[in-house]
Protein backbone atom coordinates (compact mmCIF):
# COMPACT_ATOMS: atom_id res chain seq x y z
CA UNK A 1 0.00 0.00 0.00
CA UNK A 2 2.84 2.34 0.96
CA UNK A 3 4.70 1.39 -2.21
CA UNK A 4 1.75 2.29 -4.44
CA UNK A 5 1.37 5.65 -2.72
CA UNK A 6 5.06 6.34 -3.18
CA UNK A 7 4.84 5.42 -6.88
CA UNK A 8 2.00 7.87 -7.26
CA UNK A 9 3.89 10.55 -5.41
CA UNK A 10 6.91 9.93 -7.57
CA UNK A 11 4.79 10.58 -10.67
CA UNK A 12 3.41 13.76 -9.12
CA UNK A 13 6.95 14.96 -8.54
CA UNK A 14 7.91 14.11 -12.14
CA UNK A 15 4.87 15.99 -13.35
CA UNK A 16 6.03 19.16 -11.64
CA UNK A 17 8.01 21.63 -13.72
CA UNK A 18 11.38 20.08 -13.13
CA UNK A 19 12.31 21.67 -9.83
CA UNK A 20 11.15 24.93 -8.34
CA UNK A 21 13.53 27.87 -7.87
CA UNK A 22 15.58 27.70 -4.68
CA UNK A 23 13.81 30.69 -3.07
CA UNK A 24 10.38 29.10 -3.68
CA UNK A 25 11.56 25.81 -2.22
CA UNK A 26 12.98 27.66 0.79
CA UNK A 27 9.69 29.54 1.32
CA UNK A 28 7.81 26.22 1.05
CA UNK A 29 10.11 24.60 3.60
CA UNK A 30 9.69 27.57 5.94
CA UNK A 31 5.92 27.39 5.66
CA UNK A 32 6.18 23.65 6.35
CA UNK A 33 8.18 24.30 9.52
CA UNK A 34 5.67 26.98 10.52
CA UNK A 35 2.62 24.80 9.84
CA UNK A 36 3.99 21.69 11.56
CA UNK A 37 5.18 23.64 14.61
CA UNK A 38 1.82 25.38 14.84
CA UNK A 39 0.12 21.98 14.66
CA UNK A 40 2.24 20.73 17.57
CA UNK A 41 2.15 23.90 19.70
CA UNK A 42 -1.57 24.64 19.37
CA UNK A 43 -2.92 21.44 21.00
CA UNK A 44 -0.36 21.65 23.82
CA UNK A 45 -1.19 25.28 24.55
CA UNK A 46 -4.93 24.78 24.17
CA UNK A 47 -4.83 21.84 26.61
CA UNK A 48 -2.75 23.85 29.08
CA UNK A 49 -5.04 26.89 28.87
CA UNK A 50 -8.14 24.74 29.27
CA UNK A 51 -6.72 22.87 32.27
CA UNK A 52 -5.49 26.07 33.92
CA UNK A 53 -8.67 27.83 32.81
CA UNK A 54 -6.84 30.73 31.22
CA UNK A 55 -9.16 32.21 28.61
CA UNK A 56 -8.17 35.41 26.83
CA UNK A 57 -11.74 36.57 27.44
CA UNK A 58 -15.02 35.33 28.88
CA UNK A 59 -18.27 35.60 26.99
CA UNK A 60 -21.54 35.93 28.89
CA UNK A 61 -24.19 34.80 26.40
CA UNK A 62 -27.24 36.00 28.32
CA UNK A 63 -26.22 39.67 28.20
CA UNK A 64 -23.80 39.37 25.28
CA UNK A 65 -20.95 40.77 27.41
CA UNK A 66 -17.29 40.17 26.70
CA UNK A 67 -14.91 40.44 29.66
CA UNK A 68 -11.14 40.27 29.55
CA UNK A 69 -9.54 37.12 31.05
CA UNK A 70 -11.63 34.91 33.38
CA UNK A 71 -14.84 36.30 34.82
CA UNK A 72 -17.03 33.68 36.47
CA UNK A 73 -19.47 36.19 37.94
CA UNK A 74 -22.26 37.57 35.80
CA UNK A 75 -25.77 36.86 34.62
CA UNK A 76 -26.08 33.34 33.19
CA UNK A 77 -23.32 30.84 32.43
CA UNK A 78 -19.86 32.12 31.43
CA UNK A 79 -18.31 30.72 28.21
CA UNK A 80 -14.56 30.18 28.18
CA UNK A 81 -14.06 28.04 25.04
CA UNK A 82 -13.71 31.05 22.72
CA UNK A 83 -11.17 32.55 25.11
CA UNK A 84 -9.00 29.40 25.23
CA UNK A 85 -8.89 29.25 21.43
CA UNK A 86 -8.32 33.01 21.17
CA UNK A 87 -5.31 32.69 23.48
CA UNK A 88 -3.96 29.44 21.99
CA UNK A 89 -3.92 30.77 18.40
CA UNK A 90 -1.64 33.83 18.92
CA UNK A 91 0.67 32.00 21.32
CA UNK A 92 1.01 29.05 18.90
CA UNK A 93 1.60 31.55 16.08
CA UNK A 94 4.47 33.13 18.03
CA UNK A 95 5.98 29.68 18.69
CA UNK A 96 5.57 28.69 15.02
CA UNK A 97 7.14 31.94 13.78
CA UNK A 98 10.06 31.47 16.18
CA UNK A 99 10.51 27.94 14.79
CA UNK A 100 11.14 29.31 11.30
CA UNK A 101 14.23 31.24 12.40
CA UNK A 102 16.02 28.56 14.45
CA UNK A 103 18.02 25.58 13.18
CA UNK A 104 16.35 22.23 12.56
CA UNK A 105 18.43 20.65 15.30
CA UNK A 106 17.31 23.19 17.91
CA UNK A 107 13.74 22.93 16.67
CA UNK A 108 13.54 19.15 17.09
CA UNK A 109 15.25 19.37 20.50
CA UNK A 110 12.93 22.21 21.54
CA UNK A 111 9.93 20.16 20.46
CA UNK A 112 11.06 17.20 22.58
CA UNK A 113 11.56 19.57 25.54
CA UNK A 114 8.12 21.18 25.19
CA UNK A 115 6.31 17.86 24.71
CA UNK A 116 8.13 16.32 27.69
CA UNK A 117 7.27 19.41 29.73
CA UNK A 118 3.62 19.10 28.70
CA UNK A 119 3.61 15.52 29.99
CA UNK A 120 5.65 16.12 33.17
CA UNK A 121 3.95 19.30 34.39
CA UNK A 122 0.47 17.84 35.04
CA UNK A 123 2.04 14.56 36.21
CA UNK A 124 4.18 16.45 38.70
CA UNK A 125 1.19 18.48 39.93
CA UNK A 126 -0.82 15.27 40.40
CA UNK A 127 2.14 13.70 42.22
CA UNK A 128 2.42 16.70 44.54
CA UNK A 129 -1.30 16.60 45.32
CA UNK A 130 -1.09 12.89 46.15
CA UNK A 131 1.92 13.64 48.37
CA UNK A 132 0.06 16.44 50.19
CA UNK A 133 -3.01 14.31 50.88
CA UNK A 134 -1.51 10.86 51.55
CA UNK A 135 2.12 11.27 52.59
CA UNK A 136 2.96 14.67 54.04
CA UNK A 137 3.40 14.79 57.82
CA UNK A 138 3.47 18.62 57.86
CA UNK A 139 1.27 21.36 56.43
CA UNK A 140 2.35 20.99 52.79
CA UNK A 141 -0.44 22.99 51.23
CA UNK A 142 2.05 25.52 49.85
CA UNK A 143 3.21 22.75 47.46
CA UNK A 144 -0.23 22.67 45.82
CA UNK A 145 0.75 25.14 43.11
CA UNK A 146 1.29 24.87 39.34
CA UNK A 147 4.48 26.90 39.77
CA UNK A 148 5.96 24.52 42.35
CA UNK A 149 5.04 21.61 40.07
CA UNK A 150 6.84 23.41 37.25
CA UNK A 151 10.24 22.94 38.92
CA UNK A 152 10.47 19.09 38.74
CA UNK A 153 8.70 19.24 35.34
CA UNK A 154 11.34 21.58 33.88
CA UNK A 155 14.16 19.49 35.34
CA UNK A 156 12.66 16.24 33.98
CA UNK A 157 12.08 17.75 30.53
CA UNK A 158 15.64 19.10 30.44
CA UNK A 159 17.07 15.69 31.38
CA UNK A 160 15.00 13.92 28.71
CA UNK A 161 16.01 16.48 26.07
CA UNK A 162 19.67 16.10 26.99
CA UNK A 163 19.62 12.31 26.64
CA UNK A 164 17.49 12.07 23.48
CA UNK A 165 19.72 11.64 20.41
CA UNK A 166 19.42 14.56 17.97
CA UNK A 167 18.98 12.21 15.00
CA UNK A 168 16.03 10.48 16.68
CA UNK A 169 14.49 13.82 17.64
CA UNK A 170 14.74 14.98 14.02
CA UNK A 171 13.30 11.74 12.67
CA UNK A 172 10.23 11.75 14.90
CA UNK A 173 9.61 15.49 14.68
CA UNK A 174 6.51 15.31 12.45
CA UNK A 175 5.10 12.48 14.59
CA UNK A 176 4.47 15.02 17.36
CA UNK A 177 1.85 16.45 15.05
CA UNK A 178 -0.35 13.48 15.94
CA UNK A 179 0.98 12.72 19.42
CA UNK A 180 0.26 16.28 20.68
CA UNK A 181 -3.47 16.46 19.78
CA UNK A 182 -4.13 12.84 20.78
CA UNK A 183 -2.31 13.37 24.09
CA UNK A 184 -4.20 16.63 24.61
CA UNK A 185 -7.51 14.92 23.92
CA UNK A 186 -6.62 12.12 26.35
CA UNK A 187 -5.99 14.70 29.10
CA UNK A 188 -9.11 16.70 28.26
CA UNK A 189 -11.23 13.56 27.94
CA UNK A 190 -10.00 12.32 31.32
CA UNK A 191 -10.96 15.65 32.87
CA UNK A 192 -14.53 15.15 31.61
CA UNK A 193 -14.93 11.70 33.19
CA UNK A 194 -15.81 12.83 36.70
CA UNK A 195 -18.08 15.79 35.93
CA UNK A 196 -20.08 14.08 33.16
CA UNK A 197 -19.41 10.45 32.33
CA UNK A 198 -19.09 8.94 35.82
CA UNK A 199 -21.76 11.08 37.40
Amino acid at each position, binding site marked *: *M*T*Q*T*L*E*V*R*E*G*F*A*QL*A*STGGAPASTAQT*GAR*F*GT*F*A*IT*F*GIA*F*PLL*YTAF*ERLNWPLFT*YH*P*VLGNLDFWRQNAGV*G*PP*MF*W*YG*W*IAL*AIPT*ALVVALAATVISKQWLSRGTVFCCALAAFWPASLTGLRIFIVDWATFDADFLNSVWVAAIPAFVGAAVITYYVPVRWAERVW*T*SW*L*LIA*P*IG*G*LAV*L*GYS*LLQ*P*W*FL*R
Partner: protein
Amino acid sequence: MNIILSIMREDTFWKILLFIHFLLAVGLLAGVTLQAAAVLMPARQVAGKFIDRGPVPTASYAPLIAVLYVLQALMGAWIYIKYRTYVRIPMEELRHFWTVGSFEFKEHIVAMGLGLLPAYWYFWQQPYSAEHAAVRRWVTIFLALTVWYSFIVGHVANDFRGVGS
Protein backbone atom coordinates in the same frame (compact mmCIF):
# COMPACT_ATOMS: atom_id res chain seq x y z
CA MET B 1 -28.93 40.94 13.86
CA ASN B 2 -31.82 43.15 15.00
CA ILE B 3 -32.92 43.61 11.37
CA ILE B 4 -33.05 39.83 10.86
CA LEU B 5 -34.93 39.33 14.11
CA SER B 6 -37.47 41.98 13.07
CA ILE B 7 -38.50 39.88 10.07
CA MET B 8 -38.47 36.42 11.66
CA ARG B 9 -38.84 34.81 15.04
CA GLU B 10 -35.64 34.22 17.01
CA ASP B 11 -36.26 30.46 17.13
CA THR B 12 -36.68 30.34 13.36
CA PHE B 13 -33.43 32.26 12.87
CA TRP B 14 -31.44 29.81 15.02
CA LYS B 15 -33.07 26.84 13.31
CA ILE B 16 -32.05 28.20 9.90
CA LEU B 17 -28.48 28.61 11.16
CA LEU B 18 -28.53 25.09 12.54
CA PHE B 19 -29.80 23.76 9.22
CA ILE B 20 -27.00 25.57 7.31
CA HIS B 21 -24.55 24.09 9.84
CA PHE B 22 -25.97 20.66 9.04
CA LEU B 23 -25.71 21.16 5.25
CA LEU B 24 -22.09 22.32 5.54
CA ALA B 25 -21.39 19.34 7.80
CA VAL B 26 -22.71 16.93 5.18
CA GLY B 27 -20.45 18.52 2.53
CA LEU B 28 -17.44 18.41 4.83
CA LEU B 29 -18.20 14.86 5.88
CA ALA B 30 -18.41 13.71 2.25
CA GLY B 31 -15.13 15.42 1.28
CA VAL B 32 -13.12 14.30 4.27
CA THR B 33 -14.47 10.73 4.15
CA LEU B 34 -13.63 10.32 0.46
CA GLN B 35 -10.15 11.68 1.05
CA ALA B 36 -9.58 9.46 4.09
CA ALA B 37 -10.78 6.45 2.11
CA ALA B 38 -8.43 7.38 -0.74
CA VAL B 39 -5.38 7.61 1.54
CA LEU B 40 -6.28 4.29 3.13
CA MET B 41 -6.80 2.63 -0.26
CA PRO B 42 -4.39 4.35 -2.67
CA ALA B 43 -4.33 3.71 -6.44
CA ARG B 44 -2.66 0.48 -7.50
CA GLN B 45 0.15 0.13 -10.01
CA VAL B 46 -1.53 -2.51 -12.20
CA ALA B 47 1.16 -3.21 -14.81
CA GLY B 48 4.36 -1.63 -16.02
CA LYS B 49 4.21 2.16 -15.95
CA PHE B 50 0.44 2.33 -15.84
CA ILE B 51 -1.19 3.35 -12.63
CA ASP B 52 -4.80 2.53 -11.88
CA ARG B 53 -5.84 6.04 -10.86
CA GLY B 54 -8.10 6.30 -7.83
CA PRO B 55 -11.60 7.66 -8.45
CA VAL B 56 -11.06 10.59 -6.08
CA PRO B 57 -8.70 13.50 -6.91
CA THR B 58 -7.63 13.66 -3.26
CA ALA B 59 -5.32 16.68 -3.45
CA SER B 60 -7.95 18.91 -5.00
CA TYR B 61 -10.23 18.21 -2.03
CA ALA B 62 -7.75 19.58 0.52
CA PRO B 63 -8.38 23.36 0.12
CA LEU B 64 -12.13 22.78 0.05
CA ILE B 65 -11.96 20.66 3.20
CA ALA B 66 -9.80 23.25 4.99
CA VAL B 67 -12.18 26.09 4.07
CA LEU B 68 -15.27 24.07 5.02
CA TYR B 69 -13.67 23.05 8.32
CA VAL B 70 -12.99 26.68 9.27
CA LEU B 71 -16.48 27.76 8.14
CA GLN B 72 -18.02 24.95 10.15
CA ALA B 73 -16.01 25.83 13.24
CA LEU B 74 -17.12 29.47 12.96
CA MET B 75 -20.72 28.47 12.37
CA GLY B 76 -20.58 26.03 15.29
CA ALA B 77 -19.03 28.72 17.50
CA TRP B 78 -21.94 31.02 16.68
CA ILE B 79 -24.62 28.39 17.33
CA TYR B 80 -22.78 27.35 20.50
CA ILE B 81 -24.10 30.55 22.15
CA LYS B 82 -27.66 29.29 21.75
CA TYR B 83 -26.66 25.75 22.76
CA ARG B 84 -25.11 27.00 26.02
CA THR B 85 -28.24 28.78 27.21
CA TYR B 86 -31.14 27.08 25.47
CA VAL B 87 -30.01 23.44 25.15
CA ARG B 88 -27.33 22.62 27.72
CA ILE B 89 -29.15 23.92 30.79
CA PRO B 90 -32.27 21.72 30.25
CA MET B 91 -29.94 18.87 29.26
CA GLU B 92 -28.28 19.09 32.68
CA GLU B 93 -31.61 19.45 34.44
CA LEU B 94 -32.85 16.28 32.76
CA ARG B 95 -29.58 14.54 33.70
CA HIS B 96 -28.40 13.88 30.13
CA PHE B 97 -24.83 14.01 31.40
CA TRP B 98 -23.37 11.76 28.69
CA THR B 99 -24.74 14.05 25.99
CA VAL B 100 -23.32 17.15 27.71
CA GLY B 101 -19.93 15.45 28.23
CA SER B 102 -19.78 14.26 24.64
CA PHE B 103 -20.55 17.78 23.45
CA GLU B 104 -17.85 19.21 25.73
CA PHE B 105 -15.40 16.76 24.14
CA LYS B 106 -16.60 17.87 20.71
CA GLU B 107 -15.44 21.42 21.50
CA HIS B 108 -11.95 20.09 22.23
CA ILE B 109 -11.79 17.75 19.24
CA VAL B 110 -12.83 20.57 16.88
CA ALA B 111 -10.16 22.84 18.40
CA MET B 112 -7.52 20.13 17.84
CA GLY B 113 -8.65 19.74 14.23
CA LEU B 114 -8.39 23.51 13.70
CA GLY B 115 -4.83 23.47 14.98
CA LEU B 116 -3.88 20.79 12.46
CA LEU B 117 -5.34 22.58 9.42
CA PRO B 118 -2.21 24.55 8.38
CA ALA B 119 -0.12 21.35 8.48
CA TYR B 120 -2.84 19.41 6.66
CA TRP B 121 -2.96 22.06 3.95
CA TYR B 122 0.85 22.02 3.66
CA PHE B 123 1.03 18.23 3.35
CA TRP B 124 -1.49 18.24 0.48
CA GLN B 125 0.46 20.81 -1.54
CA GLN B 126 1.77 19.37 -4.80
CA PRO B 127 4.27 17.96 -5.53
CA TYR B 128 3.72 15.60 -2.59
CA SER B 129 6.66 14.94 -0.38
CA ALA B 130 7.32 11.19 -0.09
CA GLU B 131 8.97 11.96 3.26
CA HIS B 132 5.59 13.06 4.66
CA ALA B 133 3.45 10.27 3.16
CA ALA B 134 2.70 8.60 6.49
CA VAL B 135 2.01 11.78 8.46
CA ARG B 136 -0.16 13.12 5.60
CA ARG B 137 -2.24 9.94 5.74
CA TRP B 138 -2.69 10.02 9.52
CA VAL B 139 -3.42 13.74 9.70
CA THR B 140 -6.14 13.22 7.07
CA ILE B 141 -7.60 10.30 9.01
CA PHE B 142 -7.47 12.28 12.26
CA LEU B 143 -9.34 15.15 10.63
CA ALA B 144 -11.93 12.72 9.24
CA LEU B 145 -12.44 11.27 12.73
CA THR B 146 -12.90 14.74 14.24
CA VAL B 147 -15.54 15.55 11.61
CA TRP B 148 -17.37 12.25 12.12
CA TYR B 149 -17.34 12.59 15.89
CA SER B 150 -18.58 16.19 15.71
CA PHE B 151 -21.31 15.25 13.27
CA ILE B 152 -22.65 12.40 15.39
CA VAL B 153 -22.52 14.32 18.69
CA GLY B 154 -24.00 17.42 17.06
CA HIS B 155 -26.80 15.29 15.67
CA VAL B 156 -27.56 13.84 19.12
CA ALA B 157 -27.63 17.36 20.63
CA ASN B 158 -29.92 18.49 17.82
CA ASP B 159 -32.27 15.60 18.55
CA PHE B 160 -32.51 16.82 22.13
CA ARG B 161 -33.51 20.36 21.18
CA GLY B 162 -33.02 21.53 17.63
CA VAL B 163 -34.44 21.30 14.10
CA GLY B 164 -37.29 18.78 13.96
CA SER B 165 -36.99 17.76 17.62
